[in-house]
């Protein structure tokens, strides 16, 4: 059977691959959306923090023999802690200023972090093996699906929807949302807003690191692995609507699928399609698909 001259088996497998990439977009854009929502910071070092997550996992395995499963928890905590330090020492001073200052600072930090890793580990990158438990694959009939790829979808969706639940349905999340709306009022009600902000930034960074650990066995762990991805992820956030939690998750998944289809029909355009959609969305709905106008 064929659809538009493409065998359905190939189409099915490409959609699945698109969904896998969409999971990465979802988890990364979620982190950005949370940070932007509460801190008003456009976190340009998100890509570098994603890369750090992958490197921490690799260093943990090769230097200390710490396995993937531990790294999946430990790396986000370590990188998140670095994020907390960055927030306390630097970002804190910029909240009253224009967005541009935060963008410039985090962009500079990204260059510095990537430079340090490049100097230490070179540009070719390091190899991280797929954990034993997930190293096989299943034949779905239309394609051979490596179990690890399936795990990426499960893990990232769990974390994404867990985060959404925490923000939209719990008391902590209510404080966060209130802090976004009117931080002075929330402060006056006796809630420690600065601490809440620090926690939020640390959590957003930890999400990036989590995606980095998930990515380590699939992509070569390399100092610039985040720098190409981050631009696409920013486009995802803009399309979804800056600061919208559910919007960034759904847009991430959706754009992964669209990108996957582009790779079938016109592969040369696959790196541009996200930006074409971004332009259209900005023209039609400047606040993004899920943003509040």
């Amino acid at each position, binding site marked *: 059977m064929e659809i538009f001259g493409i065998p359905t088996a190939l189409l099915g497998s490409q959609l699945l*691959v698109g969904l896998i990439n969409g999971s990465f977009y979802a988890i990364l854009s979620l982190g950005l959306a949370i940070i932007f929502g509460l801190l008003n910071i456009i976190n340009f070092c998100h890509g570098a923090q994603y890369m750090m997550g992958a490197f921490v996992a690799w260093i943990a395995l090769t230097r200390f023999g710490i396995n993937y499963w531990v790294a999946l928890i430990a790396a986000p905590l370590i990188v998140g802690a670095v994020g907390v330090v960055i927030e306390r020492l630097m970002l804190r001073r910029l909240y009253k200023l224009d967005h541009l200052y935060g963008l410039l600072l985090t962009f500079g930090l990204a260059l510095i972090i990537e*430079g340090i890793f490049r100097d230490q580990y070179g*540009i070719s990158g390091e*190899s991280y093996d797929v954990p034993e438990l997930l190293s096989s694959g299943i034949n779905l009939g239309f394609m051979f699906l490596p179990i690890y790829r399936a795990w990426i979808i499960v893990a990232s969706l769990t974390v994404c929807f867990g985060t959404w639940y925490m923000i939209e349905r719990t008391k902590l999340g209510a404080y966060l949302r209130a802090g976004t709306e009117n931080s002075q009022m929330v402060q006056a009600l006796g809630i420690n807003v600065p601490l809440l902000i620090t926690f939020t930034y640390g959590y957003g960074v930890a999400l990036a690191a989590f995606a980095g650990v998930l990515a380590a066995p*699939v992509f*070569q762990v390399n100092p*610039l692995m985040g720098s190409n991805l981050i631009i696409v992820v920013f486009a995802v956030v803009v399309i979804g609507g800056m600061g919208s939690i559910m919007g960034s998750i759904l847009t991430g998944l959706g754009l992964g699928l669209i990108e996957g289809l582009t790779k079938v029909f016109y*592969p040369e355009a696959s790196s541009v399609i996200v930006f074409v959609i971004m332009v259209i969305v900005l023209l039609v709905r400047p606040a993004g698909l899920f943003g509040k106008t």
Partner: protein
Amino acid sequence: MKTKQLAITACAAALATLSAGASAQISGGSVKIGVLTDLSGTYSDLAGSGAVLATRMAIDDFIAREKPAFKIEMVTADHQNKADIASNKAREWIERENVDTVTELVTTSTALAVMKVAKEKDRIAIMNGPASTPITNEQCNDVTVHYTYDTYALANGTAKAVTTQGGKNWFFLTADYAFGHSLEKDSSAVVTANGGKVLGSVRHPFPGSDFSSFLLKAQASGAQVIGLANAGADTTNAIKQAAEFGITPKQSLAGLLMFITDVHSLGLKPTQGMFLTTGFYWDRNDETRAWSKRFFDKQKKMPTMVQAGQYSSIYHYLKAVKAAGSDDTGKVMAMMKKTPINDFFAKNGQIRDDGRMVHDMYLVQVKKPADSKYPWDYYTIKATIPAAEAFQPLAQSRCPLIKK
């Protein structure tokens, strides 16, 4: 650190025995070599600081062995793989700092830009990193040497070997820019010429990171061989993901441009059994081992063919300056072309009139993890491709300097 530049002055070994006349021919009293390379981007492992080190070693060895009457200086800069930065830097070096030769120049776009500046200013350009054949064809000039390798030699080595050994049906995974297209074109020609068939190709954006979609297309094509007409991180990611999706070892991969640093970073598990063509392998004989170990002691990595070629070409250049008794571009080029190259890198290497340095190339196969006995023990040399066969014959040259 954007235009990192460090100038290291080599002290002259002034020998009273040499005539004053010879040194008077050297402009400014010293020979100045500019290493213009990628010190921070995608190609910084295969060229980069290793190429700077190789140049340093060549200068130091030359001074120690040949005791020249002239001073030798080196300057370095990062061209960031951008043609405009490369040509501006080359111009600045030549005009203000009196640089005699600009070298390395990984990525074709920077190489082509600097060749033009060198021609205009009558200085020498020695290329080791760039791969594309136009350097010695349509764009050729008489002040450029293309030393280490090119896409013709790579295609001719790898694609020919794989096709004649039974890999008849090919599918190409091609980086969507000039270099990828050139490599695909050269390789397809070799495949068809050897009785093989190209079933299709897919062009992926450069740089890419997820190749699974493209690999699934290659898998669906049913081709025996998937030719990777890309380089660097694109190649390593594609190899890694081909193994993940169970494409290898059912279908085999042919890395059309791979360096030992790529194999090192991937490890032997996903790369084992792959064929590739290289101009240099550190573990080939006692001579290559001796030099490579000196390099390793400083760099902590074994040299790529680009880095070994960089040493060899700089040493050859300095010898030509000494023999000519001048750093005049015309005289030095004539001497470089006249003198055969005999060192650990090349035996009876010869620089042709189109600027192509022809030398033996090696077809190697990546070892199985169990067969690798010590660090960096990665390749088995399957065949030596003689200089006369390895490179594009002059009869096919599109270089205007070649009279037919």
